[in-house]
């Protein structure tokens, strides 16, 4: 660790960070600070600017304007020092498919300069952690995606970096593997690693200490998941019905309704006033001949918070 990154200094800082590709602004004036040992979540749809932000922080892209630091090193001038201090796992699987599990680990041990004496120990630790000890001699391309992702995480922590950047590490992975993956993330955080992780799965975001909500390149909210939910002023009505998609469609322009959308098999309706809207909702659905199995006010989910924040920021969700 560098001298600049003392115990109180933030592990990651973004200061008015921006990245433009021609006329397109991928990241727009984003600022935040991540404390050491924090599991910091980056939540937003595809195209929200999460990956671009992570690449700038990881020293893979230079910002168009603004700046930041990682482990005390400047992201514009200290990229090589940053690369030594972080582990990075990209969105797409990017280990060598034509190398075995063990050979991939050996290769990255060499690149990260893990001392020769420690290599075998680190390799065994990663194999154990990723549950790949029995499959160490298999070609990586033959592994299921969930295992590949665990191996990629293992390769990123071979050199015991104080900070870990994970860009949508669980996209495309089945729910059970996803849960196992998050257990690994928490284990690493428990050992003192700062984890910066992006996702577009709302339920995963609950695992983070703090969450940054991104939409169309802008940071639209930043807080702990519980605080984000508690801070939501608009009530949420959950409507259970047989034909949820048509119910959601019918409610979008109903009086007193701000937003309506699918939430699992039910419909979440964001309203101005719960009591008033409840009547309006039932009237609208009766008029359309849609049967309702139940309606109740519920605690907002993170998805509801996200929708509300996007609405407050005055922009539609990017696709």
């Amino acid at each position, binding site marked *: 660790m560098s001298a600049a990154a003392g115990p109180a200094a933030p592990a990651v800082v973004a200061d008015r960070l921006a990245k433009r590709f021609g006329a397109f602004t991928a990241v727009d004036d984003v600022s935040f600070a991540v404390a050491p040992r924090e599991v910091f979540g980056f939540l937003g749809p595809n195209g929200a600017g999460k990956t671009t932000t992570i*690449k700038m922080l*990881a*020293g*893979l*892209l*230079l910002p168009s304007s603004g700046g930041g630091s990682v482990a005390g090193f400047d992201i514009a001038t200290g990229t*090589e*020092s940053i*690369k*030594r201090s*972080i582990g*990075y796992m*990209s969105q*797409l*699987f*990017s*280990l*060598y*498919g*034509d*190398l075995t599990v063990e*050979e991939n680990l*050996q*290769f*990255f*041990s*060499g*690149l*990260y*300069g893990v001392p020769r004496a420690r290599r075998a120990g680190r390799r065994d630790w990663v194999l154990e952690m990723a549950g790949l000890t029995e499959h160490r001699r298999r*070609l990586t391309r033959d592994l299921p995606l969930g295992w590949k992702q665990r191996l*990629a995480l293992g*390769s990123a922590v071979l050199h015991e970096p104080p900070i870990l950047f994970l860009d949508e590490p669980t996209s495309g992975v089945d729910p059970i593997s996803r849960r196992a993956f998050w257990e690994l993330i928490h284990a690493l955080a428990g050992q003192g690693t700062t984890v910066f992780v992006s996702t577009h799965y709302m339920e995963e975001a609950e695992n983070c200490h703090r969450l940054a909500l991104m939409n169309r390149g802008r940071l639209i909210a930043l807080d702990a998941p519980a605080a984000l939910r508690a801070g939501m002023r608009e009530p949420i009505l959950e409507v259970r019905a047989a034909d949820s998609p048509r119910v959601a469609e019918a409610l979008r322009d109903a009086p007193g309704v701000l937003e309506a959308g699918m939430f699992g098999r039910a419909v979440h309706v964001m309203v101005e006033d719960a009591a008033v809207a409840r009547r309006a909702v039932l009237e609208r659905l009766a008029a359309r001949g849609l049967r309702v199995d139940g309606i109740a006010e519920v605690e907002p989910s993170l998805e509801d918070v996200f929708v509300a924040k996007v609405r407050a920021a005055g922009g539609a969700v990017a696709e």
Partner: protein
Amino acid sequence: MAWLSRTRLLAVARKEVLQLRRDRRSLILAFVMPLVLLVLYSYAISWDVRHIATAVVDQDRSAKSRELLDAFRGSGYFLLDRHLDRVADAEPLVDAGRVQLVLVIPPDFSRRLGSGRPAEVQALVDGSDANTATIVVGYTQAVVQDFSARVLLRGATARLPLAADTRVWFNEELVSRNMIVPGLVAVIMMIIAAMLTSLTIAREWERGTMEQLAATPVSRLEVVLGKLLPYLGIGLVDVVVISVAGVLLFHVPFRGSPALFLVLSTAYLVGVLGLGLFISAVTRSQLLATQLGMIFTFLPSFLLSGFMFAISAMPPPLRLVTYLVPARYFLVVTRGIFLKGVGVEVLFVQGLLMIAFAALGLALAVRVFRKELA
């Protein structure tokens, strides 16, 4: 901050070897293709012309004209299997490429010979392949001249339609093979070396592994040199194998110092491998890199290195271009060491130029190769 770490360099080199061992296509390219190319081209490329398809229009039909045709047959270079009545009949045959030479013996051939006047024989040569045409004309002249000399001895004279030429096209086979095999060492290694490395960086971009590589502390120089090392080893093995095969299979002499040959081969290979890496780093696509690799190695090494055509006979602008073809320098080295047995006192200029080319190739590859993602 170390910008060239032995650990990281060896990690990259070791990874390349592991990948290469599992890549059948590259293995074939590395270890089978050089020998195949050597054998193929040693047999295919020859400046000797045989079995010249010849059509005869014998309007004289005399003992003398048959004697002349026998002289052509007897030379062993002509196939006189078509006899035509009119010259016009020959045209479609020449057009279709079935006939390379048309011999026209005029009606008064034997009469003129008998009366001591000069007789003329017309030779129509398909000039679409200028090299072959030149050789065919040379052979024809030689046969006619020989025939003419015999007629003269018998007291008659025949003024020949073509000037006499004493060029030694005959029995040249041995010489042309000796020129070709050492040249092929330079040509083949340029093609193989550039093809092998042109894939390596592009593959990392296509498979997405470049992103992970970029996120590590590995430097550009370490990646380029680490990728180069294994292929340099393969290239040197190839050079030795081709050279030994040339000596054993084609009985080409090797008169110079093997040690000097290996040192200069190393300089040559580093340059050509660097060129391949440069192409790979620029294109970021395996397909494009392979095609560009072929364009930048195959044709120049064949045509502009002095292998096929003498550089001194090229127009000045083209001659300038040849200085950019490293095979040009290595060709002087291989022919010099194989055939003449010359040493460093003659070849140091070529050696220095190849080292300069190697430095340039590597510098360009490192410079163009961006670890940053766009």
